[in-house]
C-alpha cells in the first residue's frame, strides 16, 4: 500500500520536515496539518526535505501555496530540498522554481536561513 509520512526535526531556528512516500489529494492534509503546527508555534523558517518522496500531485504543491504568503509576511520562508528529477519536473511544469527556493542539498537551505 502506498503511504505518506511526515516527520519533523529542528536545526537551530530552522524546522525541517522530512516527507516520504506519496503526496496526493488524500495525504496532503497531513502535511498541511504539520506546517500549520509550525505556524501556530511561530516557527516560520521551514525546510522541506523531499529525499524520500516518490510521488506528488498538485494537491501536494497546493499545501505550500496555501502557507507561503503568511510565512513570508512573518519574515520566514519554505525552502525545498533533495527532490528527485521526477518530483522536480512537476514543480517545474507549474513554474514553482520562480516562486520557491529549491536546493539540491538540505544544508544549503539551512545555511540560507542562518546568514539572513
Amino acid at each position: 500500500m502506498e503511504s505518506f509520512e511526515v516527520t519533523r526535526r529542528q536545526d537551530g531556528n530552522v524546522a525541517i520536515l522530512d516527507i516520504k512516500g506519496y503526496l496526493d489529494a488524500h495525504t496532503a492534509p497531513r502535511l498541511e496539518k504539520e506546517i500549520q503546527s509550525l505556524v501556530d508555534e511561530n516557527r516560520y523558517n521551514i525546510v522541506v526535505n523531499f529525499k524520500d518522496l516518490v510521488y506528488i500531485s498538485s494537491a501536494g504543491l497546493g499545501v505550500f501555496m496555501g502557507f507561503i504568503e503568511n510565512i513570508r509576511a512573518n519574515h520566514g520562508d519554505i525552502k525545498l530540498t533533495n527532490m528527485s528529477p521526477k518530483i522536480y519536473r512537476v514543480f517545474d511544469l507549474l513554474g514553482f522554481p520562480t516562486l520557491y527556493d529549491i536546493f539540491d542539498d538540505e544544508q544549503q537551505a539551512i545555511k540560507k536561513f542562518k546568514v539572513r
Partner: protein
Amino acid sequence: MISNNIRYQLKIPGETDNLEIIRQFVSSIAEKVGFTADDINKIELAVDEACANVIKHAYTKESKGLIDIAIEIDYKKLVIFITDHGKGFDVHQILQKDVKEYLAELRVGGLGIYLMKALMDEVEFDSQPGVKTQVKMVKYFLKNGKLKTNSANES
C-alpha cells in the same frame, strides 16, 4: 504493439482514498502497452489530477458518487475517459485562465487542469451540469512520427 482496439474500465467510489488504486490501474495498463517510464508517470499524474478534481468539485460529502475510468487503446494511441455524474462546471470559464494567473493568485485550484494539459497530448472537457461530465485525454505512442525512446531526460 497491439493491433486491435482494447478497452479497460474501472468504476470506483469518488474518494481520495481510492486515488492510489486509480493510479495503479492506469499505470499498469500504460506499462503493459509499452509506454516509456516517463510517459507512464505523466499519464498517471494526469489521471490523478482529473480524478482529484472530480472528488473535490463534482461530488460533495453528502452526495458522493462513482468515477468511471475507461481506457481505450488502438495502434497509435491511448485514450482515457473519466466520467462523473456530479454537479459539473462551466468548461469555458475553466479553460480561460492560464497557470500564471493561478500562481499570481496563489491559488491551486486550476493547477491540476494545467498539469493535465501539459502532461497529455490532448485534453477535452465536456460538462452537462447535473447530468454528466467527461474528461477525455489522449497520449500517442509516437511523437513527431517517431517511436518515443525510454529516456529519463525526455521532456
